[in-house]
């Protein structure tokens, strides 16, 4: 629930007092003028009866005083009820009503017995004294405002006394015929008005010595507010350090200070951590090292308070002598964020009160820095996740969705990425003239970079496999596998980081020639079922991975191989994720087991063979996390060759 604020909360009490003072001054001047007129009339012996002028002056002065009193009471009511509850407001109402009632009774010339009048008078006076105790507004003044309040209240008091003095004299004047009793209400009111002013004045006066404490408290609160606001606005670590530094110096009025921030793990080295200094020479910072050294056997720096530097001889090397110092480490349970050093000219400046303020500051700072770090970490995690998701999406699109089909071969594919994004890739191109180009490969590394190079390889594949219109011979229309590897290696030279490489195998199958040429660049050996020999074996050919040698010398490290296939032959192309799959004991699946598996199922369709092989790999490594990407392609040359 929101509480309706008091009219005076956060407003200027001094303004209120000043308005009152100005009115009092105006009215007092008016009173002086009236007295002057009265005196002049008496001196010049005007034809009018002297007591008439005096009576008129007296009546006007009385009216002015009543106006002044009313305004004073009105102002006092605001001050009394400031930060007061409903009870106080009721009490004030009772006070006002009683006062009004007393006046009314006197105006009606109802003669009270003197005893009753005295009783009511004393009762109201005591009530007024009680109400005068409500001076909460004084606590909200700062030092200079308090001095102003004292002077303004003295002035208001002076004006009241001036009026009372005149009225009392005038009443005693024999020429005036006024009932004395009417004044008792005024006396009562002015008694309260004056008493409240005096009480406020005294309280303000005695408040002066502790005003500084209030101001200091306020500075602390403001400092803390700034610190916590900074976290909410998500500002940088340097700003938090700066805020702590400024707040600490201001609040404890340090004569010199240094803040040495500590770099956080994972923080980029690009922003140099400059120490914050206040009245402290940069060259002297090196003198602080022994004070900031961690406790033996730990990484934590101790808190160090020295309230008598003159005796302890610490920091003697400094050109300016200081009386006391405090070294406060900025530490959380896990991190060290730096140290704050504060110096004071006076000895014993760091008492428990000051230290508790400083501890609040440092604790808040550490909290802010930690929050900041957490926020940044979660942000960068989120960004990585997003990047991976995008990369996975890109890679998903790179996988050929439609497999080439023709009546002379069957293809079956299987691919499984180990992480969000893997480094495996494959692609097909069905070329005119019943040719089929097949590429498989593995980029070293994982994640976004690997996905990027995968996309690059796919681009290279499609670029190189454009038919050359200038080729004279049919077999020169497309680069042979050896040429393909050399050109791909050259293309990758400039964009692959030095420690990365790519393994690839490329096959160019020519149905009309009934054979295929292929080259292996560091990729896993191709497993082959030879239907005539009824034998399963690996093509153990030589060939260096792409990106390992980055000059013309690569040409010698890759070879073109030829093979005539027969109907019923099966080619199994895969990545190392298949043969390096591990079981619970860390054993690798291996080439031999794969070979034996093909021996058992070569007669099946490409799809069935693929399923058979991958199920065996999955069974072998069941319960184990996927160690690496797995890709498995099975190409089967159909037994029934329709065109031959």
């Amino acid at each position, binding site marked *: 629930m929101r509480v309706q604020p008091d009219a005076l909360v956060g407003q200027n009490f001094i303004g209120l007092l000043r308005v009152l003072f100005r009115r009092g001054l105006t009215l007092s001047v008016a009173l002086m003028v009236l007295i002057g007129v009265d005196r002049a009339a008496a001196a010049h012996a005007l034809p009018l009866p002297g007591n008439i002028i005096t009576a008129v002056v007296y009546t006007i002065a009385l009216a002015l005083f009543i106006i002044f009193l009313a305004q004073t009471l009105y102002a006092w009511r605001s001050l009394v009820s400031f930060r007061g509850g409903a009870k106080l407001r009721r009490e004030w109402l009772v006070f006002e009503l009683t006062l009004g009632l007393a006046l009314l009774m006197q105006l009606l010339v109802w003669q009270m017995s003197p005893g009753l009048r005295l009783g009511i008078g004393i009762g109201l006076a005591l009530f007024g004294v009680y109400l005068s105790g409500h001076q909460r507004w004084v606590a909200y003044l700062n030092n200079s405002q308090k001095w102003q309040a004292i002077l303004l209240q003295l002035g208001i008091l002076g004006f009241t006394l001036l009026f009372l003095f005149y009225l009392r004299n005038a009443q005693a004047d024999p020429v005036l015929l006024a009932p004395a009793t009417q004044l008792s209400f005024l006396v009562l009111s002015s008694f309260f008005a004056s008493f409240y002013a005096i009480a406020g004045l005294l309280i303000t006066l005695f408040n002066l010595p502790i005003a500084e404490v209030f101001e200091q408290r306020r500075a602390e609160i403001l400092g803390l507010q700034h610190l916590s606001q900074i976290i909410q606005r998500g500002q940088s670590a340097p700003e938090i350090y700066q805020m702590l530094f400024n707040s600490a110096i201001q609040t404890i009025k340090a004569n010199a200070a240094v803040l040495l921030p500590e770099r956080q793990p994972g923080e980029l080295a690009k922003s140099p951590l400059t120490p914050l200094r206040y009245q402290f020479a940069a060259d002297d910072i090196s003198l602080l090292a022994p004070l900031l050294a961690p406790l033996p056997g730990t990484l934590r720096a101790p808190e160090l308070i020295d309230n008598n530097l003159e005796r302890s001889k610490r920091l003697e090397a400094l050109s300016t002598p200081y009386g006391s110092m405090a070294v406060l480490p900025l530490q959380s349970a896990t991190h060290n964020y730096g140290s704050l050093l504060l110096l004071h000219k006076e000895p014993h400046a760091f008492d428990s009160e000051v230290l508790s303020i400083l501890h609040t500051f440092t604790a808040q700072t550490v909290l802010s820095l930690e929050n900041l770090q957490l926020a940044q970490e979660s942000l960068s995690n989120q960004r990585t996740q997003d990047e991976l998701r995008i990369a996975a999406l890109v890679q998903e699109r790179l996988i050929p969705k439609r497999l080439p089909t023709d009546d002379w071969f069957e293809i079956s594919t299987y691919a499984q990425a180990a992480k969000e994004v893997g480094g495996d890739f494959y692609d097909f191109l069905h070329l005119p003239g019943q040719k089929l180009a097949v590429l498989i490969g593995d980029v*070293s*590394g994982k994640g976004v970079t690997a996905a990027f190079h995968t996309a690059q390889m796919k681009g290279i594949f499609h670029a190189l496999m454009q038919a050359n219109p200038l080729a004279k011979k049919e077999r020169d229309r497309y680069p042979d596998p050896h040429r393909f590897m050399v050109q791909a290696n050259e293309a990758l030279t400039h964009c692959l980081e030095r420690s990365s490489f790519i393994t690839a195998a490329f096959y160019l199958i020519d149905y009309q020639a009934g054979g295929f040429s292929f080259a292996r660049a560091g990729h896993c050996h191709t497993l082959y079922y030879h239907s005539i020999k009824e034998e399963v074996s690996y093509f153990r050919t030589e060939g*260096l991975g792409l990106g390992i040698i980055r000059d013309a010398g690569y040409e010698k*490290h890759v070879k073109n191989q030829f093979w005539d296939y027969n109907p019923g032959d099966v080619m199994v192309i895969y990545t190392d994720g298949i043969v390096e799959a591990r079981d619970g004991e860390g054993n*690798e699946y291996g080439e031999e087991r794969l070979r034996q598996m093909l021996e058992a199922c070569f007669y099946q369709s490409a799809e069935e063979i693929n399923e058979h092989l991958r199920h065996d790999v999955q069974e072998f490594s069941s319960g184990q996390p996927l160690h690496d990407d797995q890709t498995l392609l099975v190409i089967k040359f159909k037994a029934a060759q329709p065109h031959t």
Partner: protein
Amino acid sequence: MKVTTHTTTDTLTLVLDGELDASSAVVLDAELNKPEILNYRKVLVDCQRLSYISSAGLGVFISHLQRLQDSDVKLVFFNMQEKVFNVFEILGLDSLMNIVPTEQEAQAA
């Protein structure tokens, strides 16, 4: 994985123990990145206890191969397990890098 080093006047021997994967590759890379490594005549890599090498591990050797060759520092692997040698061989590195069976041969290389 653990990497320990032995030095004689002209030879630095790196003893690899365990699996050389992406995370341990960083340690090895830091070791090979030291500038003083170019002062040796030979860098021998003892692979007896190297049980596995990932592509990241191979990448470290590949990326330093040229640098060492340019400074006339020989990089020689010895005591390599068959499984690990197979990985080098498939990638074609056996034709590029000096891999010998025993330490004596490595010293003599």
